[in-house]
């Protein structure tokens, strides 16, 4: 459904590089995640694919149409939710939705079945102005607006940024239901924990793709054993583990330290921590998360 070939884009007359040599394709009916921090180039890619920006080099297609030549046809068949998108603050929910439906040449009634699940949650407030909605409700309304014309491909640029956990969970539930209806979804996020909810993900940093895989395979490809160390005084433990000469990497992860060693068999570490005065320290092997993988890829 979406293909990118050697896409490159620079800003300020070539002095600032946004993305380089981007190649990937998204299959029909797939949720594909672009995972990376702010400034990684996610928004640039979205804008190239939605025909809003021209790439310096390379080609890309959406639904079989070229993003440069057939931009009109692409604009007919995609739904897009930009990162900063905040709707018309001074229009009500219903007015916003009606407006976007008409702009896309359709009516709310015609495609109501697509948005019904989402819309019923915000319908009680339909006469409230968008500027007075909570983050989660705004996000739902924005999704309704992006869906109202029954797009075959949906582009969602950081839809969950700044939204609380409850709304984020609900939002991903909605994406799953849309996927079941055959809509292809390209979604970007800075939250690593959302990666596991995608079918496939591309990890992106500083305009380059570090890896493209299913979340499971990315985790499987973690090359060394990962240990979780718990106990004692957190900050001291962190400092001491970093100072340990067998340590390859050591990062705080929630209540534990995630540690990799230069050599997977490491029996001396507990002794070492004991000698530093840590009491009740436990160590166990764990399955890496996508975030562990991302950190490891960044370190390289």
């Amino acid at each position, binding site marked *: 459904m979406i293909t990118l070939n050697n896409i490159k884009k620079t800003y300020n007359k070539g002095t600032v590089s946004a993305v380089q040599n981007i190649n990937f394709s998204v299959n029909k009916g797939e949720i594909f995640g672009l995972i*990376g*921090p*702010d*400034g*990684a180039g996610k928004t640039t890619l979205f804008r190239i694919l939605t025909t809003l920006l021209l790439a310096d080099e390379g080609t890309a297609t959406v639904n079989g149409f070229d993003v440069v030549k057939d931009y009109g046809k692409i604009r007919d068949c995609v739904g897009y939710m930009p990162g900063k998108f905040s709707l018309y603050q001074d229009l009500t929910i219903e007015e916003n939705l009606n407006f976007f439906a008409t702009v896309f040449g359709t009516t709310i009634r015609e495609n109501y079945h697509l948005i019904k699940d989402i819309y019923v949650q915000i319908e009680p407030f339909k006469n409230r102005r968008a500027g007075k*909605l*909570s*983050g*989660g*409700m705004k996000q739902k309304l924005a999704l309704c607006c992006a869906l109202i014309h029954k797009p075959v491909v949906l582009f969602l640029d950081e839809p969950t*940024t*700044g*939204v*609380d*956990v*409850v*709304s984020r*969970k609900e939002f991903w539930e909605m994406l799953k239901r849309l996927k079941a209806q055959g809509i292809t979804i390209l979604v970007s996020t*800075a*939250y*690593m*924990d959302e990666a596991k909810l995608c079918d496939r993900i591309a990890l992106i*940093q500083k305009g380059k793709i570090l890896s493209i895989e299913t979340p499971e395979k990315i985790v499987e490809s973690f090359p060394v054993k990962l240990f979780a160390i718990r106990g004692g005084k*957190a*900050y*001291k433990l*962190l400092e001491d583990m970093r100072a340990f000469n067998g340590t390859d990497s050591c*990062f*705080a*992860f*929630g*209540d534990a330290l995630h540690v990799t060693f230069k050599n997977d068999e490491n029996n001396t570490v507990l002794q070492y921590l004991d000698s530093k005065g840590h009491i009740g320290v436990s160590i166990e092997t764990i399955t890496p998360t996508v*975030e562990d993988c*991302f*950190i490891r890829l*960044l*370190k390289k």
Partner: protein
Amino acid sequence: MRPVIKTDKLTKRFGAFVAANELTFEVEKGEIFGFLGANGAGKTTAMRMLCGLLMPSSGKATIAGFDVYTQTDQIKRRIGYMSQKFSLYDDLTVTENIRFYGGIYGMEIKEIKAKTLELLAELQLEKEAKTLVRDLPLGWKQKLAFSVSLVHSPDIVFLDEPTGGVDPVTRRQFWDLIYHAADKGVTVFVTTHYMDEAEYCNRVSIMVDGVIAALDSPAKLKKKYGYDNIEDVFYELARKAKRSE
């Protein structure tokens, strides 16, 4: 130990709407306290009362021993504040930003100079001392903003969603700084949307509809609610919320 933040039935009403209802909790010196809640649960209101920016409707609270009703000036001298949205001036250099904040808190020029060098060294920003803040990567800006909020050696620092949008390595480097500050005895009061960050805290409170629905160490909360991560605990509590902003 004497608590640095102590509230007793702290309440804020806006007309008939009770934004924060009878909040009662204590935060110890050097503690990292996570302040969680869904959008609209009343976090911002509570935090503004504690910073002396908003007058409570009823209840008591002391910050670093000062009363939030009558001693807001003293409170402001004893706290640091950093939010994701605003902290540094984009069009001033790193050094100028530090000097500015030092000046605001009435520090001596000598003291500011010494502190500036110390900060730059700690952040390894010596080479960027004369760079405009706008030209720094986001992650560095956040680290700098945090350090600047500590420039006047406050007792407590309030962090309002400090780590949005940075990569996981930078996020951890940021938390290293927080740990370091707490280790030196600064109390850290932090709000975040990243639930894994909640697990870095010594204790967390979860606000739902204006009241504190849970307050304990992450480990005890997980045990109590029977989940293996804070995210699920949070979800369990927050989805019962009736109100949104």
